[in-house]
């Protein structure tokens, strides 16, 4: 979706505040971080749904709030959407009943984290593109989750590497279906992306892009 989270190349944000160099600035950030991961481990949603939930914040609110406030918004949205809590419970803070799902216990955390969740998949389909090939990123503007930032749509680049097939994040966020899709690392010259007047010299951008975002250049 085209919203405030898609920040690449936007102007007016000012210098980088390097004084904020720690992972957690306050205790509530620790709690929302832990809660988000612990709730994710209930298995009621996937990581792409979780990312999308954060993106649904109103653009003004998103830009005016800190990173972990985005997480809080995302977690509340998902808990409500999946029926784990009700609006009334969220507003009152009082549980109407015990949940059917069981909390993931502390002793399971380290095992779950070290296992991770690889997203590579097998597919019978051959990759459409190969390293060295010039491609064009399609112009498309879905209202749902996508991993094609706005700044790269319509740009021409060269495939650097085929990563194999990964779970197609756009569909995964929408329906939870795990569809394998070839993924490529594509190199773009900064002049192609930002124009010769507004780009720095000798800069190349690399993005990992799904096959359905790309068209071959004839």
């Amino acid at each position, binding site marked *: 979706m085209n919203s405030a989270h898609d*920040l690449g190349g936007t102007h007016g944000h000012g210098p980088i505040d390097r004084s904020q160099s720690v*992972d*957690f600035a306050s205790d509530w950030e620790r709690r929302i971080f832990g*809660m988000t991961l612990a709730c994710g481990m209930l298995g009621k949603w996937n990581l792409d749904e979780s990312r999308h939930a954060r993106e649904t914040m109103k653009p003004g609110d998103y830009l005016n709030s800190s990173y972990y406030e985005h997480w*809080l918004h995302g977690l509340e949205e998902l808990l409500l959407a999946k029926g784990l809590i009700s609006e009334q419970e969220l507003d009152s803070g009082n549980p109407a009943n015990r949940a059917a799902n069981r909390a993931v216990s502390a002793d399971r955390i380290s095992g779950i984290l070290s296992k991770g969740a690889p997203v590579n998949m097998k597919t019978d389909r051959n990759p459409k593109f190969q390293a060295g090939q010039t491609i064009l990123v399609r112009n498309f503007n879905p209202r749902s989750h996508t991993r094609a930032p706005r700044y790269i749509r319509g740009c021409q680049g060269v495939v650097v590497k085929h990563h194999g097939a*990964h779970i197609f994040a756009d569909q995964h966020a929408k329906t939870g279906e795990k569809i394998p899709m070839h993924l490529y690392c594509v190199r773009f010259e900064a002049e192609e992306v930002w124009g010769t007047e507004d780009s720095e010299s000798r800069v190349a951008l690399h993005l990992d892009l799904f096959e359905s975002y790309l068209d071959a250049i004839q």
Partner: protein
Amino acid sequence: MPDTPLPHHSHGPSDIELRVSRLEKLLVDKGLVDPAAIDALVDTYQNQVGPRNGARVVARAWTDENYKKQLLENATESIMELGYQGRQGEHMQVVENTDTVHNMVVCTLCSCYPWPVLGLPPTWYKASSYRARAVSEPRAVLAEFGVEVAEDVEIRVWDSTAEIRYLVLPQRPAGTEEFNEDDLAKLVTRDSMIGVGLVQSPQSPS
């Protein structure tokens, strides 16, 4: 929730603190979250997993040519060999800085970052300014970090748009020929592995 707005005193908890603590209490009361699991998650990334893991990978690559070659070809398995693996590090790629190429990493859409080797990202990595500017004016961003990259050196920016996570292999500084792997690992900074810093030569004893 009370009908009156939540209190907002300058010395009391903020709205956001109250909102988070109330949500945690609700989830614990409903049996959806074990508070000890939250503690374990926070402890993992605050105290156990961090950039010293990545520093070990870098130091090994600097001292073992075969390992470096393998790391650049198959980062995920090579990093796992040193015991670092798991969430947000399932698909790793290492990009090497040389005399002609400088690499830096960003996630413009969210905050993707290689957790098993670097821990959680610093606040500035997740904030709008870095996410917006790293792709459009990386040289200006690097200058803000005190890194001047010569005009004839190509800058490669890696925007982590899918599930591949990037680690920069910085250049080994001069004056470290006699250093062993442990000494080298101590020199490697988090910023150098994001690509917004350089590993400095050790100060000569005065």
